[in-house]
């Protein structure tokens, strides 16, 4: 447990023959930390998340997530690692349209044997997020706010050690945004998950343990950002 949740050192990344997108000399996020990461669009946020989630490869340097060296894992190991230890929430359209709310929430558990035992917790997690009454519904009947809570429930099921949320509140109005964030914090605290929350909406930043500007530690964009 001593290893940090995320530890990057000298990480550089560029898409095939394109300009360098990431150049991060050092980034460390401790376990249990709630980190707010911001930066303008195009600053490499999605790329960074892709690397942390083990979906993008081809970087140089060292990326350790939950103490494991991502570059040393095989493709299927990264998939299994992501499925077992990570939770991921998208900005929008987080749900598989042809599954019910409950099926969406329990899908990671059914896809990964290591997470199968968590299926039973689905109802409890849904209750904590206030969507218990929606479990049997088709996801197409939900409001955007409800959809994001279902996405959060799915990401939180089985208490993943690292929760990555990629602008999950940007489609919500102010009241829902606040409420959603509270729920996220409560549940991260309950499951002792590290939260990496990405947004360009700085108004939320103060609620977090730490605020990070991608522009501060990503040298690849420093020149452009100055413009």
């Amino acid at each position, binding site marked *: 447990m001593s290893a940090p949740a995320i530890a990057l050192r000298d990480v550089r990344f560029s898409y095939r023959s394109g300009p360098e997108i990431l150049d991060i000399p050092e980034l460390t996020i401790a376990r249990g930390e709630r980190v707010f990461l911001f930066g303008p669009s195009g600053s490499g946020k999605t790329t960074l998340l*892709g690397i942390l989630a083990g*979906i993008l490869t081809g970087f140089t340097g060292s990326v350790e997530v939950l103490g494991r060296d991502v570059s040393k894992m095989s493709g299927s190991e990264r998939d299994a690692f992501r*499925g077992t230890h990570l939770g991921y929430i*998208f*900005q929008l359209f987080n749900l*598989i349209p042809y599954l019910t709310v409950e099926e969406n929430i329990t899908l990671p558990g*059914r896809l990964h044997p290591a997470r199968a035992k968590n299926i039973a917790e689905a109802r409890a997690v849904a209750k904590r997020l206030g969507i218990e009454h929606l479990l049997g519904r088709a996801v197409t009947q939900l409001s955007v706010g409800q959809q994001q809570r279902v996405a959060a429930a799915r990401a939180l099921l089985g208490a993943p050690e690292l929760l990555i949320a990629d602008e999950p509140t940007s489609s919500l109005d102010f009241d829902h945004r606040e409420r959603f964030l509270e729920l996220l914090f409560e549940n991260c605290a309950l499951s002792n998950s590290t939260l990496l929350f990405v947004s360009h909406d700085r108004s939320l930043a103060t609620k977090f343990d730490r605020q990070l500007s991608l522009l501060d530690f990503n040298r690849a964009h420093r020149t452009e950002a100055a413009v």
Partner: protein
Amino acid sequence: MVLLSLAWKSLRNRLLTTSLTVLSIGLSMALLLGVENVRVGARESFANTISQTDLIVGARGGSLQLLLYSVFRIGQATNNVSYESYLHWKNHPAVSWTIPYSLGDSHRGFRVVGTTEDFYQHLRFRRDRQIQFAAGRSPKDVFDLVLGADVAQSLGYKLGEKVVISHGIAAGRGIADNDHKDKPFTVTGILAKTSTPVDRSLYIQLEGITAVHIDWADGAPPMPGEETPAAKITKENMKVEQITSFLLRCKTRMATLQLQREINTYPEEPMQAIIPGVTLQELWRTIGYAEDALQVVTIFVILVGLLGMLVSLYTSLNERRREMAILRAIGAGPGKIIALLVLESGLLSLAGCLLGVVMIYGLSVIFQPIVEQQFGLYVPVQPPTATGWIYLGSVVVAGLLIGFVPAWKAYRNALADGLSVRV
């Protein structure tokens, strides 16, 4: 299992395209199985038309021709055999029984067959079924006539009815001038249905055939007023000179081959003896080309069905990019994305096959009586034949394989998209 239920639910979600795809595969499958059923049905009903006959004997000529006119009443003989030769073989020590046929006349499109009591006694079909009478009895007198079941049904004749037969079988209907109208026949019996060509003929005595042609010379009718009056004709004074062909049963199978050779080399008259089962086999080989052509067409129809499935799966991929990104995010590897699409394609083709089987089963039940009535072809209602199962299996496998095309595309999409949000 998870992927299977995902695939199933995803297909159910796109109900319209799914059902259209399944329908098109189902229809083409039904067509393929239907062609196969008709093929098997045709073979079976042909083979069932004649049983326990070791040899069919006629004048020398085409063996298939002999089989077709003697058994199926298709086409006609170019030459006859003499009654003398017939008696020679009939009384041969190796022969158990014979059934003589004298063909060439017709009645309103149905053929008239001159034969003897042996026909009613010895003819067998569907292994061991025998001719039965629905009404009346076999002909005893020169102008007695028996109707096949279909003839009786379509012409509506009853016992005691007078029937005039015509010379020749051209175009189905006798030419008025060729009617043997001075010598009408009386219906004395109606045969029970056999579902073989027996149902589509009228039967008289060999002497009856002699009687109607008695004053004919060189195929031309007698001058008016010169006909021998029917009253003067009795069975005893009618001498049978020739017949068209005869069926023959040997006492042993071993003797059959020996007798066939003897008949084929009979010095008194050029004759030929064929083994019906063997000639039928030759017929199938000849028809085989047409069957193969039909088969190829049906297979193309199936390919079109499968191609339709490919198109619908492939075009659905763009709107499913989000779905793939979500699956990736919760830890589904590229292998699982591929498996999902292959399973969807496999499920579609499996469902199509099932639908095809159900459809052909239903259609067979509905159309079997009609086909039997119209074409004399008994198409069995049965589970798919061995070949049918092979077709079904191949289509499911082909469906799975085709699934790899959209699956590959989805895999490429997933790699390119990663977790990024493309809506």
